[in-house]
């Protein structure tokens, strides 16, 4: 429920008078035509979990690889999968090419926002 | 209202004149598959002279002037072409009336023989329509109102094309929806065969649409075309897709295989001349019922002291399992050991083609044995010690 300004009058300062101090629009009062990519990137540190498991196994087998083949292959596959996905994204998603049906990353969004910019 | 009616029929007869003229001229490029199915007609005829002096817009006036100049130019070109054709017919002693385009080509290649590698670069004499690029017909009537709804996108044909593609894709998606609801699958054996085809390259598409396209627009075109082709019911709109697919040359049938000749002892043999690699040049003869003997410039395989070069000669023979069955004679000069070995290897591979079946030729091609190795020594540049090496940096 909005409190009327007159209530604060008793306690002191009067609100500015529009005519004396005209409102200046320092920062544009509208949304930008682009979306920032900071939120998307995040720290894409891959296979942290597998690396931890691998180190644990190596530690208790004194770094003899014969005993932790499973962890090693898991770690390798995870990294390989990560690199493939990154490469594939580089070709399609990061170029802004839209594949219908899944959500868009910031580059694809910007492509459309540029086509329908906010009215000035 | 009368004016409007009058204006309309001018436009109508203007259009049907343009249409029928457009049809006769047809699309200039022979391999371009696009027929005159577009909304805007592609023609070079100007508006008929019988247009009364109406309130003609400035744009139309300037267009008419340009169109008339173009007509004059084309008319003179046609005249000159006819006269030239008659002269040529007389020169060649043939009858001028029945002198077809093939006869002209033969006469020109006879009178002006040229060894240029590229056929397009050789002297030719073709009709003016083929030589001079087609110009767009009037895109607006004399009051200045454009015919095409997408005129103001500056590339009406191109965006019309994109519109058609999306329309086709939506049509196929609805069809797929209906088929799924009814639960039957797309017909497998009618599946569109895209392995041997490639989308029209950019400059080719520009010639078809008679409009200049930007790279990004061409990218959009190929993305949407690929999505259309990828849909399971693509074979339904096969006609539409075929118009934008260019057949790739089938690599395996590319070079015709020479027939082996018979030598005096009755053995089949093939000689491949001009086997080149780096600066080496070799002539290689392969004789079929042989014992695996190899002679290079009169010496046996020990002509090559480097083991890697001997291995190179072994590669094609072992690949086609002809090691003990074929005799090879090669005389090679110029170049170094690896250049000469590469030349002979290529020679042996090319000669073996006539002794092995088609499937082995294809696997030899996939192994890279039949491709000529163009790599040459990179030239030395001034200001550098060699092709790449720079002079040592001296402080003082």
């Amino acid at each position, binding site marked *: 429920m909005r409190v009327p300004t007159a209530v604060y009058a008793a306690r002191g300062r009067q609100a500015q008078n529009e005519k004396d101090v005209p409102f200046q629009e320092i920062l544009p009062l509208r949304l930008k035509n682009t979306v920032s990519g900071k939120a998307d990137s995040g*720290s*894409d*540190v*891959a*296979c*942290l979990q597998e*690396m*931890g498991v*691998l*180190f644990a196994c*190596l*530690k208790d087998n004194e*770094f003899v690889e014969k005993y932790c083949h499973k962890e*090693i292959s898991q*770690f*390798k596959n995870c*990294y*390989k999968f990560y*690199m493939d996905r990154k490469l594939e994204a580089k070709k399609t998603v990061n170029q802004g090419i839209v594949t219908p049906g899944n959500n868009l990353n910031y580059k694809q969004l910007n492509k459309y926002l540029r086509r329908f910019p906010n009215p000035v | 209202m009368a004016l409007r009616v009058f204006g309309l029929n001018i436009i109508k007869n203007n259009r049907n004149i343009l249409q029928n003229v457009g049809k006769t001229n047809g699309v200039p490029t022979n391999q371009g598959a696009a027929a005159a199915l577009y909304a805007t007609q592609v023609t070079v005829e100007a508006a008929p002279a019988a247009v009364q002096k109406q309130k003609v817009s400035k744009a139309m006036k300037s267009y008419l002037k340009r169109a008339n100049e173009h007509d004059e130019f084309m008319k003179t070109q046609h005249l000159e072409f006819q006269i030239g054709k008659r002269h040529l017919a007389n020169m060649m002693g043939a009858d001028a009336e029945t002198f077809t385009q093939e006869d002209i080509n033969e006469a020109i290649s006879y009178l002006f023989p040229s060894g240029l590698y590229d056929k397009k670069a050789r002297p030719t004499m073709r009709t003016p329509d083929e030589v001079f690029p087609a110009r767009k017909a009037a895109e607006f009537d004399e009051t200045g109102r454009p015919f095409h709804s997408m005129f103001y996108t500056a590339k009406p044909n191109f965006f019309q094309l994109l519109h058609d593609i999306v329309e086709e894709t939506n049509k196929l998606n609805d069809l797929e929806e209906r088929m799924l609801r009814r639960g039957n699958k797309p017909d497998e054996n009618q599946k569109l065969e895209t*392995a*041997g085809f490639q989308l029209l390259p950019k400059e080719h598409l520009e010639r078809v649409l008679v409009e200049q396209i930007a790279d990004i627009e061409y990218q959009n075109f190929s993305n949407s075309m690929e999505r259309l082709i990828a849909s399971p019911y693509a074979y339904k709109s096969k006609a539409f897709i075929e118009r934008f697919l260019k057949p*790739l*040359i*089938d*690599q*395996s049938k590319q070079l015709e295989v020479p027939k082996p000749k018979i030598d005096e002892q009755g053995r089949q043999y093939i000689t491949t001349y001009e086997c080149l690699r780096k600066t080496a040049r070799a002539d290689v003869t392969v004789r079929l019922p042989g014992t695996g003997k190899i002679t290079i410039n009169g010496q046996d395989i020990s002509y090559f002291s*480097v*083991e*890697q070069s001997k*291995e*190179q000669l*072994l*590669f094609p023979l*072992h*690949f086609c399992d002809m090691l003990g069955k074929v005799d090879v004679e090669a005389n090679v000069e110029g170049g170094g050991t*690896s250049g000469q*070995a*590469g030349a002979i*290897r*290529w020679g042996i591979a090319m000669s073996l083609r006539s002794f092995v079946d088609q499937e082995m030729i*294809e*696997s030899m*091609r*996939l*192994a*890279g*044995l039949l*491709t*000529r*190795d*163009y*790599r*040459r020594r990179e030239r030395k540049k001034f200001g550098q010690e060699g092709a790449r090496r720079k002079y040592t940096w001296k402080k003082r």
Partner: protein
Amino acid sequence: MSVYPQHFVDPIINKSLQKEKAHELSHIPIKPALNVSTDSIFYGELKQKFTNYILKEGNSALARELLTKTFEIIKRTQIERLHLAKGDKGSIITDAETLLINAIENTRPLLHLSAIKRGGVKYQVPIPLTEKKSYFLAMKWILEAAREKERKVSLPEKLAWEILDAACGQGRVVKRKDDLHRLCESNRAYAHYRWS
């Protein structure tokens, strides 16, 4: 192979591999085969790469000769062991190329440390290795170990000893790999600093 346009494809020497790709490559032109690659018994993918690492100043004939001598010494030692071995004669491999491959498999590292600057401080962060890089590191270490020798010992001899050691899991190169793994393990805490 910069002479060839973009759409040319690398050749495939192995016949079984060819069968899989035959259909899609039937319309695509193929680059020529290198003058090093053949399909004979003298050619091995890893062997060729190892020869290239031995190569100095473009003298590929010498590099190849050194590797042949190394294989010869490996074979001689293995055959002598074979004759001396009383019991299990089967376990001794006399094929030098398989021994080289085993040696490289045993010395391939999984991850490596790379310095990443975070807040003005350089941290040694363990990063996983791609397959190509791990093969390269294994071969480079073996060669480095072989080149740390006195003058009177020949390279093939020392290389042969290194390969034999590495193939059966001991020796300097395997130790170097384990040290790297230990170091990575000790820096485990900084793992999430990657690509800050």
